[in-house]
């Protein structure tokens, strides 16, 4: 379980997160939704120590993550698929996956087999440079690369970005399956609130850096009043 309490992050004068507290339960999908600029990406970057919070704490099964280096956070079993996917374009698919497995827990060969099973499109492209992959294939590669290290937590930043609706549904189903089959803990940041809320167990609504709601996903989905926050129609 990740327990975030009193987390604040500022970029210069911009206060991206203000006193954010929330729990990410183990083995469940927690969706984080909100309008553009709500601070969703910042939240994930704070968990991965890519930004240094101005205050607050992030406790991961008894380990304090604030102040830890990014690479150590990753080695503690927290996988992070960044916004815009972040596949290494200069590398081949195989090299991307090798890199992902390097500091993970599993073995490379077994991991490759699992991932190619999960994402068959990658198997036939293993020698191809990641820069030549399609958007959806890159998303698969980024997820496969994070999963091959067998993390216990997966932070996903807008996995549906730029994907066709059908592909988005596939991705969401895959995430759901991972969660159910392997007990993976997922933090799912999404613009596409409806599809995220369909697969998530819990949902956190961020609004201008503040938690506007934190409840079971169906409750958030049913709450008409919350909708304007994450649909971005609020003033």
């Amino acid at each position: 379980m990740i327990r975030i309490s009193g987390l604040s992050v500022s970029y210069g004068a911009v206060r991206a997160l203000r006193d954010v507290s929330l729990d990410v339960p183990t083995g469940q999908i927690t969706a984080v939704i909100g309008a553009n600029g709500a601070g969703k990406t910042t939240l994930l970057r704070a968990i991965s120590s890519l930004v240094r919070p101005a205050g607050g704490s992030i406790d991961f099964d008894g380990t304090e993550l604030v102040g830890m280096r990014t690479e150590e956070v990753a080695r503690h079993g927290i996988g992070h698929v960044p916004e815009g996917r972040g596949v290494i374009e200069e590398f081949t698919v195989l090299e991307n996956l090798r890199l992902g497995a390097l500091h993970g827990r599993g073995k490379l060969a077994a991991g490759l087999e699992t991932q190619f099973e999960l994402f068959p499109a990658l198997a036939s492209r293993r020698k191809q440079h990641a820069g030549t992959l399609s958007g959806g294939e890159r998303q698969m590669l980024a997820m496969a690369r994070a999963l091959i290290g067998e993390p216990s937590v997966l932070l996903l930043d807008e996995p549906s970005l730029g994907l066709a609706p059908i592909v988005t549904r596939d991705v969401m189903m895959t995430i759901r399956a991972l969660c159910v089959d392997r007990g993976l803990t997922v933090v799912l940041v999404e613009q596409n609130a409806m599809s995220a809320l369909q697969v998530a167990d819990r949902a956190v609504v961020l609004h201008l850096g503040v938690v506007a709601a934190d409840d079971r996903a169906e409750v958030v989905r049913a709450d008409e009043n919350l909708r304007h926050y994450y649909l971005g129609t609020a003033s």
Partner: protein
Amino acid sequence: MDAFLTSRNVSDILHGLVNGVVFGLVGLGLVLIWRATRVLNFALGAMATGGAYLGLGLLSYQVPFWWCFLLAIPAGMLLGGLTERFLVRPLYGKPEINPIVAMVGLLILIEAVVGSIWGTRQRSVLPPFSYVDFHLGANVVQLSPLAVFQVTAAVVLALAIGALFRFTNLGLQLRASAVAPEVSRLLGVRVSRMLTLGWMLACGVAAVAAVIVSSGFISGLTPSGMEGPFAAGFIAAAVGGLESPTGALVGGVSLGILESFVTDYWNPNLVLPVSLLVLVVVLMVRPHGLFTRQVVRRV
């Protein structure tokens, strides 16, 4: 065949090879550092000199050549590691001019320190190879066992570096840290350690280049002796586009051969000006060098 091997042009080419591999190694060092940290290491030549002196300085105590050769490499690596850790790291993210100035300061500092310890007199060491050129009948082939050793050492080193980067997990992490530091961190790669290691490797490579220079028959090493090879190595690397290790090596060897021709057919004083001209012309036509695939404007 014999007439061919001893002809003037082939002689020039063979003659240019030794210089060429030195330029290529220096260029390779520059590329490794540039790719990893976006710093053009103006002190690379001086650091190589420092490493070589640390190793070869021992020769005056009658330590065998091979020991000194092997010592120069870790000495250069040590210098590289310390520099990255304490001088370059505080400057990441600062204006582009700051690391340039810092490296230039380090350049004269190292040359001066080396000069104050060992003096500015030329030091040459005789390696256990003959510098007498091979003969074919009555004619001379411009190639000695020493030159063969020098070129072989450089080629072996370049291949080893290439293999390291291509085939090992360490190389994978080194490359990843250079092109995508943030993503690498997210995957658990200790990026700052990789950057230090990149500097160490590059300076080790350059130290070998300095040892090759100092083991030449006529040309020994002086504290400022790597300035010329540095300039040529930079030109080689820049012609290749500063991004491509292969480009730096190929560029270095070509430049060495070109210089040999200029010296033979024209005038030794014009070697560097001609190389400069080549650089300028190449960069005017292709601002990102000959070996860079995509043109990315860094903002």
